[in-house]
C-alpha cells in the first residue's frame, strides 16, 4: 500500500487531510500545556508586561496640554510664533476660561509642572495666575451689583440662562465631556441645567462659562445649580458679551435686568483679557512661552525622547540642548562603558575560579562553590556598604596602605564615590552570575580533550587556547549577557558608592520617577535603555549566535 495518494494531500484513515487531523490531535495537547503555564502567564502579563507597557507609553503621551487647555490650543493653532508678537485677544480669552475651570479642578498646577520641563518658570506662572483669576470677575460683580443686587444670586442667573423656548442640551454635554477629560474621572449624573438657544446665541461666552460652572457644580460638587452663586468667570463672560451683544430685543426672563446691566456696562471699564494677563504677570506676553505651549499642544510628542538624548523640541524644530544641560548621552556612554568594564573584570576574575571549580575533586569543589555562593546569602545593601567601609578614605584599605607606608597620610587614595568604587563593588556583586554559567559549561568539557591536545603535541597553553577555551566560549557568552544586562540597569550599588562620577542612567531614571516626577522623561530613558539592550542582544546573536549560549 502506498503512503501517498496520486493527487492532493495525504489523507488520514477517515478521509480528512492528514495535516488537519494532526493539528486537531495536537490541539488538545497544546491547550493542556497552555493551561499549565497560564497562571504564570497571567501573573507576568498583569504584574510585568502591562506596567512596563503603560510606563513606556508615557514616554510619548502628551495629552495633558490639549486636555487642560483645549480651547486655547485650538485658537493658538493659527498663531505664528516667528512674527515675534504675542498672540491676539481671542487666545487670552480662551486661556482665561480654560484656566479658570482648570484652577477650580486644581489641574492647572499639573500643567504648569509639565510645561516647566520644557520652559523653566512656567510652573510658577500658572500657579500665581491661577490665584488671581477670581479678582477680575469680582470687580465686575461689584459694579453689576450696584445696578441690580440680584446679579450675585444663583437663582437669578439660573432663570436668566435657562430662558424660555428650546434649550441646547448638546452644549452642556460637550462641557461635561470636556470636564471629564480634564479631571480624568468618569462623571455621571444629571446637570439639571440647559441654556436656552436664544441666550446661547445672544451671550455665547457667558453661556459657555455658566455651562462650565453648572457642569462642575452638579457633577463634581454634587450641588443644585440654581442654588449656587456663579463663578467669577461668568461675570467676565457677561462683560465681554455685553461689549458687542444687542440685548435690547431680548424678551426672555430677566430681560429687563439684562438690559439695565448692558446700559450700566457702558460705564464700567472693560479690561481686555490680554491686558489682564499682562498685569497678572508680564511673562504672558513672552513669545517663547506661547511657542512652547503651541509646540506641545499635540496629543503625542517626541519631546521626551529628544530630551533623553540631549535634544529638545522647539517651535523651530529639533535643536541640541544648551551644553550645560547635556547630561544623558554622557550618562548612557558611561553606563555602557562601566557595564563593559564590569563584564570584563568578571570574566577575568571568574574564569579561573570556574576552571578550578570544574576541575577540583568534588569535595573541594563543593567548598569553593559555597564560597562563590556566599555573596548571594548576604543582603545586597550589606555587601555594598561593606565596600564603602573598605574603600573610603578613612577605610580599611587606605589605613593599611598608610600603615605600611605605601601611601602618605595626606594623600589617601580616593577609591569610593567614583567609577573605580562602582566597578569594584559591582564586579564583586555580579561575579557569581559569571562563574555559574561558566562552571556549568566547563563541567561539560571532558578532560580527555586537553589530554588529546597534549598527546598531539600541544603545549599546555596551546591546548588550553586552541581546544579548551573555544569550548568554554558559550559559558563566557552566557555569563557576559547576564552580567552586562544586570549591570546596565543596576541601581542600588551605583547610588550608594557611585558618588557623582559613578552613577548610571538608572539613577537618573529613578530620580525622574521618584523626585522630579517627570515620568515621561524617565520612561523615555528607560525605553532607550531597553532598546540598547535589545540591540546589543541582536548584535550578539549576529556575531556569536544565541544558540552558542549555554546556561547549564
Amino acid at each position, binding site marked *: 500500500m502506498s503512503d501517498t495518494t496520486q493527487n492532493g494531500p495525504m489523507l488520514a484513515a477517515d478521509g480528512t487531510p492528514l495535516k488537519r487531523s494532526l493539528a486537531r490531535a495536537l490541539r488538545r495537547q497544546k491547550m493542556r500545556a497552555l493551561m499549565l503555564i497560564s497562571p504564570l502567564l497571567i501573573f507576568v502579563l498583569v504584574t510585568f508586561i502591562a506596567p512596563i507597557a503603560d510606563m513606556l507609553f508615557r514616554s510619548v503621551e502628551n495629552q495633558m496640554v490639549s486636555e487642560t487647555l483645549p480651547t486655547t490650543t485650538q485658537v493658538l493653532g493659527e498663531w505664528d510664533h516667528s512674527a515675534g508678537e504675542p498672540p491676539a485677544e481671542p487666545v487670552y480669552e480662551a486661556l482665561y476660561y480654560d484656566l479658570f475651570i482648570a484652577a477650580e479642578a486644581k489641574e492647572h498646577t499639573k500643567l504648569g509642572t509639565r510645561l516647566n520641563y520644557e520652559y523653566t518658570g512656567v510652573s510658577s506662572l500658572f500657579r500665581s495666575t491661577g490665584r488671581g483669576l477670581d479678582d477680575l470677575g469680582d470687580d465686575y460683580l461689584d459694579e453689576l451689583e450696584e445696578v441690580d443686587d440680584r446679579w450675585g444670586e444663583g437663582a437669578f442667573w439660573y432663570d436668566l440662562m435657562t430662558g424660555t423656548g428650546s434649550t441646547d442640551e448638546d452644549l452642556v454635554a460637550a462641557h461635561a465631556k470636556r470636564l471629564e477629560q480634564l479631571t480624568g474621572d468618569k462623571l455621571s449624573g444629571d446637570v439639571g441645567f440647559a441654556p436656552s438657544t436664544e441666550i446661547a446665541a445672544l451671550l455665547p461666552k457667558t453661556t459657555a462659562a455658566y455651562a462650565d460652572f453648572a457642569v462642575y457644580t452638579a457633577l463634581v460638587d454634587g450641588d443644585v445649580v440654581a442654588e449656587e452663586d456663579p463663578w467669577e468667570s461668568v461675570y467676565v463672560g457677561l462683560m465681554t458679551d455685553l461689549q458687542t451683544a444687542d440685548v435690547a430685543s431680548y424678551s426672555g426672563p430677566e430681560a429687563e435686568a439684562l438690559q439695565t446691566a448692558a446700559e450700566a456696562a457702558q460705564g464700567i471699564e472693560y479690561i481686555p483679557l490680554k491686558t489682564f494677563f499682562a498685569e497678572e504677570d508680564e511673562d504672558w506676553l513672552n513669545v517663547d512661552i506661547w511657542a512652547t505651549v503651541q509646540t506641545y499642544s499635540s496629543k503625542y510628542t517626541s519631546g521626551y525622547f529628544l530630551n533623553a538624548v540631549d535634544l529638545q523640541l522647539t517651535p523651530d524644530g529639533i535643536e541640541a540642548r544648551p551644553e550645560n544641560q547635556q547630561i544623558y548621552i554622557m550618562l548612557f556612554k558611561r553606563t555602557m562603558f562601566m557595564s563593559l568594564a564590569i563584564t570584563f573584570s568578571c570574566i577575568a576574575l571568574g574564569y579561573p575560579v570556574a576552571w578550578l571549580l570544574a576541575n577540583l575533586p568534588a569535595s573541594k569543589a563543593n567548598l569553593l562553590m559555597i564560597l562563590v555562593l556566599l555573596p548571594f546569602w548576604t543582603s545586597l545593601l550589606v555587601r555594598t556598604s561593606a565596600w564603602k567601609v573598605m574603600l573610603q578614605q578613612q577605610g580599611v584599605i587606605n589605613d593599611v596602605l598608610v600603615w605600611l607606608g605605601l601611601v602618605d597620610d595626606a594623600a589617601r587614595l580616593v577609591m569610593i564615590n567614583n567609577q573605580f568604587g562602582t566597578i569594584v563593588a559591582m564586579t564583586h556583586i555580579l561575579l557569581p552570575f559569571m562563574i555559574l554559567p561558566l562552571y556549568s559549561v566547563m563541567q561539560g568539557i571532558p578532560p*580527555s*580533550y586537553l589530554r*588529546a*591536545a*597534549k*598527546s*598531539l*603535541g*600541544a603545549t599546555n597553553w596551546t591546548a588550553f587556547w586552541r581546544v579548551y577555551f573555544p569550548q568554554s566560549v558559550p559559558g563566557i557568552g552566557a555569563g557576559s549577557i547576564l552580567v552586562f544586562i544586570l549591570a546596565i540597569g543596576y541601581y542600588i550599588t551605583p547610588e550608594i558608592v557611585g558618588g557623582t562620577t559613578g552613577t548610571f542612567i538608572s539613577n537618573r531614571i529613578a530620580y525622574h520617577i521618584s523626585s522630579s516626577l517627570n515620568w515621561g522623561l524617565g520612561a523615555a530613558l528607560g525605553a532607550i535603555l531597553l532598546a540598547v539592550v535589545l540591540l546589543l542582544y541582536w548584535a550578539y546573536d549576529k556575531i556569536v549566535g544565541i544558540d552558542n549560549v549555554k546556561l547549564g
Partner: protein
Amino acid sequence: MAETSDSGAFVAFERVQKSYDGETLVVKDLNLTMPQGEFLTMLGPSGSGKTTCLMMLAGFETATYGEIKLDGMPINNIPPHKRGIGMVFQNYALFPHMTVAENLSFPLEVRKMGKSVREEKIKRALDMVQMGSFAGRRPSQLSGGQQQRIALARALVFEPELVLMDEPLGALDKQLREHMQFEITRLAHELGITTVYVTHDQTEALTMSDRVAVFNDGRIQQLAPPDRLYEEPENSFVAQFIGENNTLEGTIKSISGNTCEVQLDDGEVIVARPVNVTEVGQKTRVSIRPERVEMDKSRLQEGAHTLKAEVLEFVYMGDIFRTRLRVAGNTEFVMKTRNAPDQVRLKKGQQIEIGWLPDDCRALDA
C-alpha cells in the same frame, strides 16, 4: 613472567610502580619490553592497572617508582606533548569546534609545518582511513565508526613511532567493531608502527595482537602471543579470563616431569600437565578447554582415563554443539563438539563417558 630489561627494546617499563593515594599500589613492579613494530595489547578486567600503565606511557600520570624508557631514553620527566606519542581515546576526543580537517591539522600546526605539507599529510591520512570526502564535516555530523576512523587518522597523521589506544572500539556495535579491529591491525602493520592497545575484550586482544599482556591486580599475569595465551595459560586467572574454560578442583597426588596425577574432590584420579604446581598435596585447579573434551574414545590415547558424565543441557549453536555436563560434581562442565554429519546429538539425562589428552589438561594454582 617478568622479562628482563632489554637495552634494544623500543618501549621498556622497568620496575614501575604507581600509587594514587600512598596506601595501595595500582601497578606493582611492572616490567615490560616491546620491540619496534610490535602490536601489544594490555588486557585485563577494569581496575587491573592497564589504563594506568598506558597513561604513564603517554605522560598523563607519573610513575611513583621505576623508569619508563622510550627508544632507550628515560621519559619520566618529559611532558606529554614532547613525547611524540599518538593516542586514540576511548571517546575519541575529537575537538567538537573544529572540522575533521582542522582536527587533523592540529598536531601538524603545533609542529609548525607549512600549509602545503599539512594539506598533503591530512589528505594522505584521511585516504588511509577511507574518509577522504569528510574533511569539511564536524565530528558531531559523523557516525561512531566514522569518528573512530578520524581519531585514528589524527593519531597517525603526525607519523608517531608509537601509538597508544585506550579501548578505542568500546563504543561501537559488534559488526563495526570487528571491521575496525581488522582495519587497525592492517594499518599498524602496514605503517610499521609500534602499538600499545588497551582493552578488556579478550576477542579483540586475541585477534589483533602480536603479544598480549594479561593484567590483574596491578601485575602482568602472562605476556605471550595469543595462541600460547589461549592454549597454554600459565595460571588459573589467565585460564579463566581468556576464553571459555572448565575447571576441576583437586589435590596433587604425584608429580613426575611433564605429568602429574591429580585426585579430584570426588576421589577420581586424572593425569594432567603440571604448570605452576610444585608440591605433592598442593591444592590445584585443573583446566580443560571445552573444545578439547572428547566423547569419542577412538580419538583418545589407548587406555586413556575417562570420566562419567551426565548431560544436563544440549544447545544447538549452528557451527557447534554446546553440551553442559555434570562431571565429578561440577555441573558447569562444558563440552563443545563440531557440527559434523556423523556427530551425535545428545539428549538431556544421557550418561556418557568423556576424556581428553593429558597435554590439554593443565594443573594450575588453586
